[in-house]
């Protein structure tokens, strides 16, 4: 994670990114990345990846290292969602680079979202990268919906946790999530 990326993330976080948070972003990234890698590499039959578990674990680890600064869990969630997206997309790109060229079949959005529970295959990796691109497009006209998808999908946060992290009402999260899913579903089906 280089300087430019950190600046980019901080910009997205806006005023919440002041102070100690900025210093800790690289730590969050490293923490999530190594945890994700460890989980995926672990000799388990199904290579499952529980993003929720990763985020919680990262929170515990970081708050242990640096108890005072991470006391606000909502704050942490807001950061972790964005970082987790980066971690997963990086991982997906890695998978694709390794296994370039295998065939692809279109997956429904629900299946892509199921990456948190299912197999992390080349297809998933490909779909993830497409989802990432679609999400960037969504962000251009609906930043909040994009954040909601990051929290719900990439960080595995619940509606309430997402609402707290983004400081909006739960009903807003549900609406954004519902509309964004429909929009993304269409984008992925068409793309």
């Amino acid at each position, binding site marked *: 994670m280089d300087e430019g990326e950190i600046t980019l993330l901080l910009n997205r976080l806006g005023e919440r990114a002041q102070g100690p948070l900025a210093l800790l972003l690289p730590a969050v990234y490293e923490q999530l990345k190594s945890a994700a890698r*460890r*989980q995926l590499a*672990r000799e388990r039959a199904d290579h499952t990846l*529980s993003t*929720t*578990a990763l985020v*919680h*674990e990262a*929170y*515990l*680890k970081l708050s*242990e290292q640096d*108890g*005072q600064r991470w*006391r606000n*869990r909502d704050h942490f969630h807001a950061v972790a969602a964005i970082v987790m997206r980066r971690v997963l997309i990086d991982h997906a790109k890695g998978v694709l680079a390794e296994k370039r060229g295998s065939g692809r079949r279109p997956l429904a959005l*629900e299946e892509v979202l199921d990456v948190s529970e299912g197999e992390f295959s080349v297809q998933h990796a490909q779909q993830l990268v497409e989802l990432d691109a679609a999400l960037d497009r969504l962000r*251009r*006209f*609906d930043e909040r919906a994009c954040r909601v998808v990051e929290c719900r999908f990439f960080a595995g946060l619940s*509606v*309430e946790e997402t609402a707290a992290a983004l400081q909006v009402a*739960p*009903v807003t999260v*549900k*609406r954004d999530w*519902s*509309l964004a*899913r*429909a*929009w993304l*579903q*269409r984008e992925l*089906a068409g793309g």
Partner: protein
Amino acid sequence: MTPELWQQIRSLYHVVVEVPAAEREAWLQANCADPQVREELRSLLASAVADATLLHETVEPAPERESADEMRGQSLGEFRIVQLIGSGGMGSVYLAERADGGFEQQVAIKLVRRGLAGDTSSRRFLRERQILGRLNHRHICSILGGGLSEDGRPYLVMPFLEGALPLDEYCERRTLDVQQRLHMFVAVCAAVQHAHQNLVVHSDLKPGNILVLPDGEVQLVDFGIARLLDQAEAGLTTLAEGGRPLTPQYASPEQIEGDSPTTLSDVYSLGVVLYRLLTGTLPYTVERANLRQLAEVLATTDPSPPSRHRPGLPEDLDNIVLKAMAREPERRYVSAAALAEDVQRWLAGEPVQARPATLAYQLGKFVRRHRWPVLTAGLALVALAALATVLALSNARIAAQARQLQAERDRAEATADFWAGLFEQADPVRAQSAATSTAELLDRARAQLTTEETLSRASRSRLLAVISTAYWNLANPEGALAAAEQAVALQDPTDPPSETAAVVYKQLANIAMSLDRLEQGRQAAEQAMAQIEQLPDAPPALRAQVLDALALVLDEQGQPERAAELLEQVVAIQRQLPLEEIRVDMATALGSLGYMHYRLATQTKPVDESRLQRADTLVAESLRLLREAFGENHPQVGFMLNASGVLSRERGNYAAAAAHFAAAGQIAAQSLPDGHTMRVSLALNQAEMLLAQQDWSAAESAYAQALGAAEQTLPAGHPDRIDQQLGIARCALGAGDLDSARQALLRMQAALPLAEAELPLERLWAQLLHWRLVAEPTAAAQAEIRKAVQAAGDPAQLALLQQLATEAADG
């Protein structure tokens, strides 16, 4: 796409998505002028599969239904329709009989409604037929056949369940009692479990789909929207996903949110069914059509415990229902079988597995703290047995509130995945093995945490503290202590101070103190305090808990004044916090503080009236909080009423004391088993008060009642039993029955050598001899008593005796 255009689409989308699917096009035409926006909305609506359609299924207008007359007499295969039995969204059910008249057979035929044939509904019918073909269970309605009607509509033939009623209606009409209802419910669970074992999820369990024949036989019907769980038929299941009817009042939160139903969502629905059977009402009242509102309600509120609607319903049943209905699937019973087992445990009078997940150790502390007079020595002996009972009766509402505590919440979240993993391994549907007991799960969790490498040391420590509490809930104090010790062992003294460390040390302190391991408790409480002192920003609720633990230690060390000061601090902190989150903590602290003031007040002569007054105020407040938290009839309310009674008696207000003791006794009789020490203690308190009022016969019957209970559970040398013998003797003396008095005193004399060393034996001997002299004023008897004492060979007793004899002679 511009943000402005998107904003327009967004606001229209959320409205149109609420419009029934069939009317959306018209709505768009009427409300959306911009063709580009309209097209975008159409396309988005088409992509919004599950959640949007789900929201509409139940509000669609009733479809065209054929009239009963129209169908009467028509033939379907070898059957002829006799009459309409009922109709629903999918179609109608008819009574039919064999058309060939070969032999009399009445059947029920389910026919798809007109206009639905050929689409998903037909597939659903087909699937129901396949699913039922898989299932063969006495409580699942079998299928006799099926086919296509002349106009191409599929139908299913099933046995005609003559006189069958929906489960809830059956129970009401027959006015079944709770036990009978539970037996019916167990049969339902067995049927659901059978379906699950065959990889079928019913997904629409409700009383209307659980029919009961006049002979009481349960029949599970309507697998119309059941799902198959195995992969081979996944395609089929997905096909039928389009419009998924569901009964919102019985659907799990995840189904309402649009997730696929699972075996655990069936467990949830079973919980709602049980709720209905026990209370006659539903946990949530929401307008039927408004799924969105229901989703909000489910996500934000916990159902009120069934006992709220049916006062007097045992807390165990509250806990069972609320566990089945837990919002998070992983907190529910792992299977329908596990739910049924717990119900059967309750029916058999055994402790149930459903317990509130947190704060139970505080109940332990509570029991320990509220050793109000008479309860004093008794509790130590039977503390564990008493705890098991009291804990089994504790209330889920409190656990729900406690989960809101920040510290608790952090802990719960960190552990959710760990627990989920454990339950996954134990899921009987996946593992094809019997349900694992909670105790086994805990053992496994503890073993796993000693080797688990992926979790940090601090996380493991924290998890072990949680597990320690869970053991305590299961009345397994050794497990609780071992887990707490393990949690502390994972703390490194060179680590910087942390909330985790404070929580872990506090846990060990509470457990150790409750087990009378005073030195260990003291060290742990001081460690917890040392952590908290270095954490100025620690949550106030945690600080209060640590101070509270330390106060208990100080009290045990004979520093009640200092302990009372600490508890005053605890209460002061708690008054700053939202009451919802600390109600039980605060009630406990107030009660303990009241007890300390009471003791300090009665240590002085004359009694310190102002302290007594303070104790009275504190106990009253504690009582109020406990009633709010647990309802009127919880044993903890009983404890506190007992305390109120003691205070009233101390201040000479016998009428008030009598009322308090009677109320406490009533609660104990309802909620605690015969022979429970609490019941013994209450009877004793009441008897002592009646004795003070010189109501000899009432006191004697209270003593007799206490004695009857105590003989079952307490050893002969138990102080309560010695107190009783003495009390009965005094009642007899008061009533002038010297014979009975002498017998009671002789029984007491026989018991004294067996008594525990910590009792004030000298005082008891003195009292015994004093009353014996009163009871047997003859010279011969006095000589005999003197002889007995000389045989005991204790000069101190002899001296005492002589003194008493002189007093008696003077009197």
